[in-house]
């Protein structure tokens, strides 16, 4: 099974069991343009595999995900949304680590972080292999992106 399929499987499991949302793959992309009104959760990988995993969630989708995650209405981009999107990146990053790692010690994960803005670009200045998966939540779409240094 390719890493793309394993990320899809992991994302579906995380959303189904923790966020209480069923998600479907809309498209697998090679690139994406500037991100607008979006919050990105990030987790870095270092060691035998170096790179970054990002989950790009437009504001309305981020609020819908956080509402479902926490079981309460969230109507603004607040600390809860940042924390929830960061934790999603953390769980996806942990799954990616378990896919790539031989024993758990050869790859280190960073602590999750988030960025948000009205328009920004997300691209690596290194040569990377990129996997981008566009998911549909039924309440909007989001992307999971894995950039691994070649």
């Amino acid at each position, binding site marked *: 099974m390719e890493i793309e399929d394993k990320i899809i499987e992991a994302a579906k499991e995380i959303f189904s069991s923790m966020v209480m949302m069923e998600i479907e793959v809309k498209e697998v992309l090679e690139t994406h343009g500037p991100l607008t009104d979006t919050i990105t959760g990030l987790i870095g990988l270092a060691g035998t595999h170096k790179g970054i995993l990002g989950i790009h969630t437009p504001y309305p989708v981020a609020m819908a995900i956080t509402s479902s995650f926490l079981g309460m209405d969230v109507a603004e981009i607040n600390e809860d949304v940042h924390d929830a999107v960061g934790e999603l990146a953390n*769980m996806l990053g942990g799954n990616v*680590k378990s896919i790539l790692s031989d024993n758990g010690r050869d790859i280190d994960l960073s602590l999750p972080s988030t960025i948000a803005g009205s328009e920004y670009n997300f691209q690596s200045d290194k040569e990377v292999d990129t996997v981008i998966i566009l998911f549909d939540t039924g309440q909007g779409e989001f992307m999971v992106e894995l950039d691994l240094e070649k």
Partner: protein
Amino acid sequence: MGKNVLLVDDSSTMRKIVGRSLRQAGLDFDNIFEAADGLEALDVLDKEQVDIVLSDINMPNMDGISFLREKQGRDAVKDIPVFMISTETGDDIIGEAKSLGALGAIKKPFTPDKVNEVLGPLM
């Protein structure tokens, strides 16, 4: 009589989710205390009567492994059972946690059924 549990995770979202899972699993807890890292967790253990600790591994300030090591050195709290709840499930890391007294690990993502399966025998 219910038990008191301490949830240790730097994500406030995850602390809420774990707390919700404990309730959905039907486990009888009197109090659910929270801490954002190992340092805060040690502080709670000093002040409160805690029966079970559920701890993340990857945290700022003091991570879950360092927390276990510190807790092992404190006679008053070293026997309180700890389960790790983490995305970190490599054999080496979980093995180190167990060598420092952790009873087991629950992998994120998890379901209330999994929480019940792991914690039920201690209740």
